[in-house]
């Protein structure tokens, strides 16, 4: 069912997110949405769901919507449950002969609405096995309300609720591994990806997520220029560094099989990922070396665990 990736063909598909919305220049979230929607077959209709967050408030400001497909926003913590309702209605009405067209169901939530306040709703939706895709655009903090920490925020990151100061080195806890948690819901497909190498990884994973029957989860690292403190033009480079340092490994879990999508030939030190971001500036001052050491140790530990799980 997998079609060979043709970059030119995929990139010339009609946009299902219209321009003119209010997302920031260099926002990873918008790139994620457009990339995922591009994986839809052009003849398939979709209902796009969305938790409250940067994406929703900037792409659906009354009286305008940026979505070419039908779209529903409900509240902050219930993207999973809301789209469960839409998907169920579709199955019922289709069975009764009231719906003729084919629909796919894709809901987007930031890490705030997914890892934290929306966690229960996501878990329930996946557990019930609705034929839908939950896409987390993970930018590592509650960005819409001004960069407060989430459980997806990396350790030592400076956020507005975990600021680096004379008595603090930023966020205390390490980040939650949500992709693994969702894979352990034993859903047919879960994957972790971001923007690398002509978007092939993201596109093929989005395609699999959408067209594998049952519940699917995609965790897409979607950097935020404002919250992370990098120049908008550096978006793709930041993603490359995240992958090459193994901070954000690319992998998928299909029918319980853990598959590593990419292994860097030369694993870069985590400093290379941290240095270009203002949110880690304090790690390059006095005492920072030790903290970077701790960060590196955590990255290494998780990377080895993942490699073992994937049998490499």
């Amino acid at each position, binding site marked *: 069912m997998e079609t060979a990736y043709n970059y030119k063909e995929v990139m010339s598909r009609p946009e299902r997110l219209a321009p003119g919305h209010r997302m920031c220049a260099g926002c990873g979230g918008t790139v994620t949405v457009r990339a995922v929607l591009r994986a839809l077959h052009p003849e398939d209709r979709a*209902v796009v*769901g969305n938790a409250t967050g940067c994406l*929703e*408030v900037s792409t*659906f*400001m*009354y*009286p305008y*919507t940026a*979505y*070419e*497909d*039908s*779209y*529903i*926003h*409900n*509240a902050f*913590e*219930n993207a*999973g*449950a*809301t*789209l*469960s*309702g*839409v*998907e*169920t*209605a*579709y*199955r*019922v*009405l289709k069975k*009764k002969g*009231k*719906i*003729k*067209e084919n*629909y796919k169901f894709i809901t987007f939530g930031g890490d705030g609405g997914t890892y934290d306040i929306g966690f*229960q*709703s996501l*878990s*329930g939706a996946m*557990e*019930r096995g609705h034929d839908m895709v939950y896409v987390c655009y993970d930018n590592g903090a509650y960005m819409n309300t001004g960069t407060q920490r989430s459980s997806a925020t990396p350790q030592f990151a400076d956020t507005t609720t975990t600021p680096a100061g004379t008595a603090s080195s930023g966020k205390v806890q390490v980040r939650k591994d949500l992709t693994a948690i969702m894979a352990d819901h034993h859903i047919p497909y879960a994957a972790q990806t971001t923007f690398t190498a002509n978007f092939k990884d993201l596109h093929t994973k989005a395609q699999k997520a959408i067209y594998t029957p049952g519940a699917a989860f995609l965790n897409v690292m979607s950097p935020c220029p404002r919250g992370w403190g990098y120049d908008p033009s550096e978006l793709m480079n930041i993603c490359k560094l995240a992958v090459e340092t193994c901070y954000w490994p690319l992998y998928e879990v299909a029918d319980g099989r853990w598959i590593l999508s990419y292994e860097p030939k030369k694993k870069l030190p985590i400093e290379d990922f941290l240095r270009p971001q203002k949110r880690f500036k304090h790690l390059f001052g006095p005492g920072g070396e030790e903290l970077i050491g701790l960060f590196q140790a955590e990255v290494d530990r998780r990377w080895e665990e993942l490699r073992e799980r994937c049998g490499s």
Partner: protein
Amino acid sequence: MAVRERLSGNEAVAYAIRQIAPDVMPAFPITPSTEIPQYVANYIANGKVDTEFIHVESEHSAMSAAVGASAAGARVVTATSSCGMALMWEELYVAASDRLPVVMALVNRALSGPININADHSDSMGARDSGWIQIYAESNQEVYDNFLQAYPIAENPAVRLPVMICQDGFITSHGVENILLVEDDKVKEFVGEYCPEHYLLKEKETMAIGPYAVSNYYMETKRAQREAMKNAKGAILEAAQRFERMTGRKYGFFEEYRMEDAEYAIVIIGSAAGTCKAAVDQIRETTGKKVGLLKIRVFRPFPEEELAAALKDKKAVAVLDRSEMFSATGGPVGAEVRAALYDAKSRAEVVNYFYGLGGRDITVEDFRQIYDRLEEIAQTHIIEDMYAYIGLREK
């Protein structure tokens, strides 16, 4: 030919759900409404209804899924009580403001704390500002009849608002009474098909629902909701008229029991009305005093003018609330009835009492004493026990 049966309020609601066969039912269990999703699950498991059940993991998700399914174009039902409804509180506002005709069976139970599973109205009264139509029942017959009228009211094009059909926890939900049921085919014809004008899955059309709206737009949406709630009055009466033609049973905004010549009246919502009716009959038989009961059926929209007209010329009125609103003054029903009487320039003495909180029983004797108090208040024009709790243990 009506079907004669003996059912509890929960059984009756589940029976109505089977007859109506809504497309989707997202529901989470909570005492004393749990039996409703259980009975429906049983119907489904035995091929008696094709409603699709969503086993949501919380009540917040129940209403979230209801919003999604209704927006998608399906007819949706759910059931809950007390803290379950409190948990879905923000979603009640979304369902109403998104103008979705969701129907909810609300089995009234006290809100925590302390945790209490018995009947009082703090749950539905706590949601009276949410934009939902609220219809109450005294008995299993009424909750069944109200449920059959719910979708025609909710889906009326001039309304398009969600409806909660309320019944008292345990007293009505679990108490078994005789009941007259409508035949399946008559119900189907009465309720009709759900044909929304716009929905997410409409052929050749797209819709976006749930926008972010800045101050330039928000206020107008509330005004539109207000208009829909005003239209609901007409829709409720229309549905009641059609219902009467089908069954012979009459419904309106409230029931007036022996009110025509009554000088002293009690205003109440729910099952305690039955106890009060017994007191009314006893008093009239033994003393000849002219007492009556006004039982409110529709609380939202609030039938202000009609209530004022029915009460304004009484000598004294006691409004009984089965929930606190902690204004340190009156309760929700008391406050709204008194406001209505004030606007009508009524000269009636009005007293507001609380009763039945956390399921505390109220007796025929309690009601007799209230009527005695009303007579005293009418003569002396002095109210010393305003906002008293009936049946409170003082020590």
